[in-house]
């Protein structure tokens, strides 16, 4: 059975239609990359999956059941920023999930349990290349290191679904490539289902298993909010004809112009 299923999903803010008629189903273990014009509703879609926003119409199912209307441990997330807690050191950030689980009241672990959590956390940090930075605070880490820390923190909880909202947008190309490798290897080893938003269409084309393009098929330049975005392309990655990339690029750019000029 599909892990995520959308049936005629709509999202509106007031009279602005952001997303309309989304229909898709995603199997466990898929890696979906999402591209689209700025302001077309990618983050809004992630918020629906996270449970911080409700759909206006339609159904969003997790394992065939309506998705819980608040964030929980089944869906991990890495935001573009503020993803790690700045008052905890790197290793404490990674231990946090386990600590919250081990003591329902205060979320603080002690003794043997704490040692075990710390050991696991250090291993996790090692695997994202942050071993030497374990006892540093986030403000002492670079942007790329903070994002790796956020990944480690989310993944040690072994969420079934991982949501990534332009997690590497602020990083330079070299580090981005490293992060891609990291995400792919973690995805493979944990059998995650990943939804990742990116602004970089080429990134979307080789990362993951499936590429979604969010775009507005109907677009009224006088009223860009009148129609919502849909999934206009749903492509298996690595399996597309020449010219698709350019054509997607052109369309997304056009939508982006309309959305961001008139705003």
């Amino acid at each position: 059975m599909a892990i995520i299923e959308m049936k005629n999903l709509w999202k509106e803010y007031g009279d602005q239609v952001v997303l309309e008629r989304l229909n898709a189903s995603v199997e466990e273990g898929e890696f979906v990359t999402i591209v689209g014009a700025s302001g077309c509703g990618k983050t809004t879609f992630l918020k629906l999956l996270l449970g911080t926003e409700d759909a206006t119409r339609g159904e969003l199912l997790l394992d065939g059941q309506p998705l819980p209307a608040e964030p929980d441990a089944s869906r991990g997330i890495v935001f573009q920023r503020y993803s790690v807690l700045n008052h905890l050191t790197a290793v404490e950030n990674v231990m946090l999930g386990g600590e919250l689980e081990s003591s329902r009241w205060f979320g603080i672990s002690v003794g043997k349990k704490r040692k075990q959590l710390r050991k696991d956390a250090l291993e996790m940090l090692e695997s994202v290349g942050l071993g030497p930075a374990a006892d540093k605070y986030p403000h002492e880490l670079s942007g790329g290191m903070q994002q790796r820390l956020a990944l480690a923190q989310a993944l040690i909880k072994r969420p079934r679904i991982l949501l990534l909202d332009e997690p590497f947008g602020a990083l330079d190309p070299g580090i981005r490539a490293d992060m891609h490798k990291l995400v792919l290897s973690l995805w493979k080893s944990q059998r995650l289902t990943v939804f990742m938003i990116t602004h970089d269409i080429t990134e979307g084309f080789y990362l993951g298993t499936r590429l979604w393009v969010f775009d507005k098929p109907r677009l009224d330049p006088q009223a860009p909010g009148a129609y919502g975005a849909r999934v206009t392309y749903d492509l298996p990655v690595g399996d597309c004809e020449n010219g698709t990339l350019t054509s997607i690029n052109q369309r997304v750019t056009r939508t982006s112009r309309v959305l961001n000029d008139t705003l």
Partner: protein
Amino acid sequence: MKKLINRRPGNALSWALGLLPFLLLMIAYMVASDARLAENPNDKLLPALDSFVQAIDRMAFEPSKRSGEYLLWADTLASLQRLGIGVAISALVAVVVGIGNGTIPLVRSTFSPLVTGLSLVPPMAILPVLFIIFGLGELAKVMLIIIGITPFMIRDLQQRAREIPAEQIIKMQTLGANTWQIITRLVWPQLMPRLISAVRLSLGPAWLFLIAAEAIAATEGLGYRIFLVRRYLAMDVILPYVVWITFLAFVIDFLLSRYSQWRYPWFHQKGH
């Protein structure tokens, strides 16, 4: 030659420049005092430096003839105790209410209007009410401090709690946290350094309310003493007391700031 805006003093020069205004004030005072005393040796307004030394000696190092106490220390102890109790209770109330209002929408809807309303009541205007309800004892004086600074601290902490990025609260939930854990592991630790800065800011008003309360009803305390000796125009006691109070305020502020920097390095690195 660099532009003025880019010229920075070295360490030694920085100290010297900082001390200079104090020195000039001292000199100005001594000149003025000498001039007045030359005209009238019994002048009380600007006593000479040796009168201060005598007064300090009398207040701090000789037991009082009436009570046998060392007045300055007894006054200091009494005042610091009231200040400490008042500020501590305020801080505690402010953290609890501030976290409740700042993080839980249902609590905020219930109490936030009340806090806003209370914070607009001028505390000095209800001082007589406090004396009527709590009598002239310690309680009324501590209550004035509490009533004076708590609403402000609550509003400050409530605001700070709301400034915690939504991303972090969502993050906690995706790591499996319940509401109480979000408070103990995210909101509480994030608010601690902010509580310290709220305390530092409210210490000024706290001193004001303390001295006001002591001036009206007390038998000891720094504010009480100043207003007592005012009747004899005893500038030689008042001015050292004022300097002493200022010094105490400075030391408390300094210690809080240092503690915060040592204990919460992550807070001070963000350019706060």
